[in-house]
C-alpha cells in the first residue's frame, strides 16, 4: 500500500476508529509500544533507527509492518522479538515490561511468548521435522520428553505436515521447510507469532499457501505480526503499519481482507502442483 492511497483513505480510517476503540476495550493488548527509540553508534556517528514508535497490538490481530529497507522495520522486529532492547521508551509484552529484563529473562520470554518465522526458514540442517519443531521445547524444562513429542506432532499436523514427521530438512521443499518453521513457532503456544519476510524466498503459489496458513491461524485466534516489504501481503492482513525513516507514517485497518485461499484458487493450474503446494 502506497503512501498516497493511505492518505486518501485517511477518512475511511477515522470512521473505523470508533469501532476499533470498542474492540480495544474488549480485547487484551498483547503488545504495547510507547515512544520506542533505538539509536546505534556507528563509529562516532549516532544513527537513529527508530525515532519514537508507539502502537499497540491486541490479542488475535493479524498485523503487517511494512517499510522499505532502512525504514527501521528490522530493528522494530528485533525489539518486538526481545532480541534487542530499545534505547528509550517502554515495551509491554503480554503484560510484562521487556526493557527492564536481563538477557536470561528475555531468553525465557522468547521461549514462552514468541514464535519466530524467518525468511530463510532457519531449520537445523540434516535434522528431522519433528526435531526441528521440538527445539523451543528443549529449552523449556517444564515440558517432558513425551509431552514435547506430542506437542511437536500436533503443531506439524496444524501445518499439514503430519505425514512428514521424520523427513529431514534437506529433503523438503521451500514451502515445506517454511511450514516446519511455522510449526516450530506454534509449538510453544506463543502470545505472538513474528514473521520476518516469511514468504520472501517462496514462489507465488507457495507464498499464497503459506499466507493461507497464516490466515487460518489468525482465524483460530493467533496474534500475528508479519514484517514485509511486499505491498501485496498487506492486503491479506487485518491491519497495516507502515514505517519510513524510523517513524510510523500510517496505521490502517483493512476493510476488505483478501482471502489467500481464493487467491490460490485463481492461480492457473500447474501440471504437477500437488507436491509443491503441500
Amino acid at each position, binding site marked *: 500500500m502506497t503512501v498516497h492511497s493511505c492518505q486518501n483513505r485517511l477518512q475511511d480510517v477515522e470512521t473505523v476508529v470508533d469501532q476499533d476503540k470498542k474492540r480495544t476495550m474488549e480485547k487484551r493488548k498483547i503488545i504495547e509500544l510507547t515512544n520506542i527509540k533505538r539509536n546505534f553508534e556507528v563509529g562516532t556517528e549516532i544513527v537513529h533507527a527508530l525515532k519514537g514508535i508507539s502502537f499497540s497490538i491486541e490479542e488475535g490481530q493479524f498485523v503487517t509492518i511494512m517499510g522499505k529497507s532502512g525504514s527501521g522495520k528490522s530493528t522494530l522486529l528485533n525489539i518486538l522479538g526481545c*532480541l534487542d532492547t530499545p534505547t528509550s521508551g517502554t515495551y509491554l509484552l503480554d503484560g510484562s515490561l521487556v526493557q527492564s529484563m536481563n538477557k536470561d529473562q528475555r*531468553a525465557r520470554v*522468547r*521461549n514462552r511468548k514468541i514464535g*519466530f518465522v524467518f525468511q530463510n526458514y532457519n531449520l537445523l*540442517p540434516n535434522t528431522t521435522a519433528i*526435531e526441528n519443531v521440538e*527445539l523451543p521445547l528443549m529449552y523449556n524444562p517444564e515440558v517432558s520428553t513425551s509431552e514435547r513429542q506430542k506437542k511437536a506432532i500436533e503443531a506439524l499436523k496444524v501445518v499439514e505436515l503430519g505425514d512428514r514427521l521424520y523427513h529431514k530438512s534437506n529433503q523438503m521443499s521451500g514451502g515445506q521447510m517454511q511450514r516446519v518453521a511455522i510449526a516450530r513457532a506454534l509449538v510453544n503456544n506463543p502470545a505472538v507469532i513474528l514473521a520476518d519476510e516469511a514468504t520472501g524466498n517462496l514462489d507465488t503459489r507457495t507464498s499464497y499457501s503459506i499466507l493461507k496458513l497464516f490466515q487460518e491461524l489468525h482465524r483460530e485466534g493467533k496474534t500475528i505480526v508479519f514484517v514485509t516489504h511486499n505491498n501485496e501481503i498487506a492486503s491479506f492482513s487485518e491491519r497495516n503499519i507502515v514505517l519510513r525513516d524510523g517513524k510510523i507514517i500510517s496505521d490502517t485497518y483493512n476493510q476488505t481482507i483478501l482471502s489467500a485461499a481464493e487467491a490460490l484458487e485463481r492461480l492457473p493450474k500447474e501440471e504437477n502442483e500437488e507436491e509443491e503446494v503441500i
Partner: protein
Amino acid sequence: MNLSNLFRIAWRALNKNKMRAFLTMLGIIIGVASVIAMLAIGEGSKRSIEKQISEMGANMIMIMPYDNKAVGGVRMSASNVQTLKIKDCEDIRNKAQYVKDVSPYVSSSGQFIYQNNNYPASISGVAPSYLEIRQLKIKSGHMFTDSDVKRYNKVCVIGKTIADNLFTKGENPVGKIIRFNSIPFQVIGVLESKGYNSMGMDQDEIVLAPYTAVQKRILAIDYLHGIFCSAESEDLAPKAVESITQILANNHNIGNPDDYDFEIRSQEELSEMLTSTSDMMTILLACVAGISLLVGGIGIMNIMYVSVTERIKEIGLRMSVGAREKDILMQFLIESILISITGGLIGVIFGFFSSYGVKFFAGWPVFIEPWSVALSFVVCSAIGIFFGWYPARKAAGLDPIEALRYE
C-alpha cells in the same frame, strides 16, 4: 533447561558429524592409549627389576673389603685385601642387631672338569646359611652342613648351567666327583634354576662349597673375600647396616668413616640404582605420551572453533527460540566433553590392547596401574573442559541478531 536435554542436543549435533567427531576423538584416543601403554611398559620393567632383586634376596647385605690406604702405593684388587677375617663374621653373627643370617664368602675361579667335559667358572666358599641369604633352593640332593664346614670337606652344590655343561649325557650329578682344577669335589646337590638377572648375569653359573675347604684347600688364605648377611626384613636393612658398620669399625679400630677398610652395600641401594633408570624412562615415555594427549586436546579446541563458526546461524536460531547464554555454553562444553570422554574410554581400551600387544609381540613386561587409567581419564576430561571452554564461550557470547543474519 535441564541437563538431559543439553546432553540430547549435544549428542544430536555430534551424531550429525560422525566422521569429524571420530577424527577429533582419534587425537584423544591415541593420546590416552599411549599414556597408558607407556606407563604400563615403564611400570612393568620397574616391577620386573624389583622382582629380580627380591629373588636375589631383597634384604641382602654385602660386605666387601676396601683398600683405602694405597694412595700413591700399589693398589690391590678387593680379593687381595686382607682386612676381613672370620672373626668379623662371627662378631656380626653374635653381636649385630637386625641381622638374621651371616655367611663368609671366598671365591676362586678355575676350570671344572668331569670326565671329558670342562667348564670355566668360579667356586664360592660359603656357609650353609648362604642359601637363605641369596634365596637359593636345592632341587636335588642336599646342601652341605656346618659339620662339612668344620671338617673342610670337599663337597659342593652346583647350579644348572654347571650341571648342564659337565653332565652332558644327562647323568644325575648328585654323588659324582668333579674336579676344580686338580682338586676333587663331590657333588652333593643341584640348585634350582634362577635364570639371568637384570644385569644379564647367569645366576645358575654357580658352585657352592664350604668356605673352609675353599680357603684352606684351594686358596690357602685365612682372610675372607666378603661377608654376606641378611637383615631381618627389607625395612630393617639400613639399621642392620649401621650395626654391622659399628662392629667392623670397632674390630678394625677405625674411628674415621673415611678410613674404613670395608664397604657395605645393601640391595636397597642396588634396587634404587636400577629402578631410577627405569623410572626415568617411564617419565620420559609418559611425557611423550602426554604431549600427544595435549595435541589431541588442541585438536578438540580447533574443531570446536570450526564447529562454532560453522553453526553461528544455528546458535542465533537457538537463542531466538529461547536458549540462554548458559545453555549455548553448556551445549558446546558438553560436546567437547563427550568427544574427550568417549575418546578417553576408547583410548583406555586401546591402551590395554597395545600394552598386552607389546607384552605378546615384544615380550616386554607390562603392568597397567589402575591409577594410570584413572589419571589419563581425569586428564582427558579436563582437556575436554579446558579446550572446549574458549570455543563454547565464543558461541555463548554471540549476539543473536547478528548470528541470525550471519551468512
